[in-house]
């Protein structure tokens, strides 16, 4: 491993790791699993750093790896509900009409298929446009739009049902 290569990686990593940890946590829903996913992604990125830094935006590469980890875990879990950390916040806001609890929304997100959840995080947390989301999810732009659309529809349906059942 050349020192120039290490330096280039270290500079990038020191600036980006906190944001990557936050991103991974939102996609995966668990601090430990998020750290594991980020570590694996960083390890992979460092191994291929020359190629990753030259041919890709390293951020895109690492975030794609994190999403893939989540999607794989979701598939391995037999598409069952994946346990997530209990939300700390009781509510997003006062229990006014139309405002769902933060816990309900977090849990509903956890039940989304991996790519749909990742698409929501990229869209509504990272504020990326659909072309950027498509690049990270390694799919076509219309597919990225579809992921977001389907995720929102699924959340609305689930939260409506929860509302209905009280």
């Amino acid at each position, binding site marked *: 491993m050349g020192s120039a290569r290490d330096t280039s990686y270290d500079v990038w990593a020191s600036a980006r790791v906190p944001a990557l940890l936050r991103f991974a*946590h939102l996609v995966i829903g668990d601090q430990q699993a998020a*750290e594991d996913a980020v570590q694996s992604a960083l390890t*992979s990125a460092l*191994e291929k750093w020359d190629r990753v830094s030259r041919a890709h935006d390293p951020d895109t590469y690492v975030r794609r790896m994190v999403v893939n980890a989540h999607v*794989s875990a979701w598939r391995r879990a037999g598409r069952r509900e994946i346990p997530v950390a209990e939300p700390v916040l009781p509510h997003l806001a006062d229990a006014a009409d139309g405002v769902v609890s933060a816990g309900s929304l977090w849990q509903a997100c956890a039940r989304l298929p991996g790519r749909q959840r990742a698409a929501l995080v990229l869209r*509504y947390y990272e504020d990326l446009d659909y072309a950027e989301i498509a690049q990270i999810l*390694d799919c076509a732009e219309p597919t990225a739009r579809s992921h977001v659309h389907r995720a*929102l529809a699924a*959340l609305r349906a689930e939260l409506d049902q929860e509302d209905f059942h009280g």
Partner: protein
Amino acid sequence: MDDLTLQLREMFERHAAQVDTSSEAQARVAPTRRHRRWWPAVAAAGVVLAVVVAGAVLGSRAGENQTATTAPTTAPRGSVDSAGWRTESWRGVQVRVPSEWGWGGTPTDDWVGDPGTVSDLLLDCGASAYRTPDGRREVNGSGHTPYVGRPIMMTDACATYDPEDPPQPAADYVWLGAPLERGIVRIGGYTQETVDIAGTTVTVTTDDPALRAAILATARPTEGPCPATVAQAHPQVTGPADGMAVCAYEGGDARGVGDLVYSTWVSSAAVEEFDRAWHEGISTAAVDCFLPHTDEWVVLATQSKNYVVRFDSCPRIVAGNADRLLTRATAAPWAVDGIPVYVVGPSGASDLQRFFRGMLG
């Protein structure tokens, strides 16, 4: 912006603010630097596929004198050669992989209805790494660890998938015996190539074409000290000159002949440790046992002696007319590497749990 998307933004922001991004957390995610150790081997030999040639030479030597194919000079145990590769075998095929790779499962046929009927889907019961060479166990598998997979259920949490739309790999892997068609398939940025060796498939999936070629070039019929099939009652396996071969088998026809599931090698130091445990061990003659059929067993083969590990009502190790109960002391020297991944082992022996897979994976 509607209520839901606004609430999503707020929820994500609040959760993100709670994530531990401290310097300690950042240190925890530092890369593990799992170098692909085949490049130094290639460079040292001065030819592109030096590692392949080295593997072939070592393999043929093993065929001549029945020694382990990759007797290490530095590693205390495990069949790792000086280039940092190890040999993996399943049934009648073997292949060499970087020694950092873990062990896990492969997809299998999705058996439905009448015996012999399979659906068009593949069944994934743990096609990922479940154990790493440093002994780390992944309860739900690790999608990011390169690994060698065998068609053995790692978990009962299974999912089916369409082979035309396979899951996106997140790490390199080799599958032995997976029910895939021969040929090359692109999966995202990865290439998956399946070949047939002696009637068993070998599938290599990686985003590195040179690595794929190097691994595939090492695939060949099993030629190490552990035969592809062996009779439980009279294994007659000739072990290596140094150390001990560990050969795991399963199944068994009417003659009690089973198929090779996994093999590894332990050093002479491990053999000494085993010898001590054997001499201090307890014979089953002193224990009330009933001895039903066992359909998995492990052969431990030194150059002069064979031991057969049987997992019945008295999990024990047999050598000729003598035997010893399987205990932590008698298991620890050889139940290493992929043994805890692929050998179910005794039931109900909690003190032996860490050495074997157990019924529930």
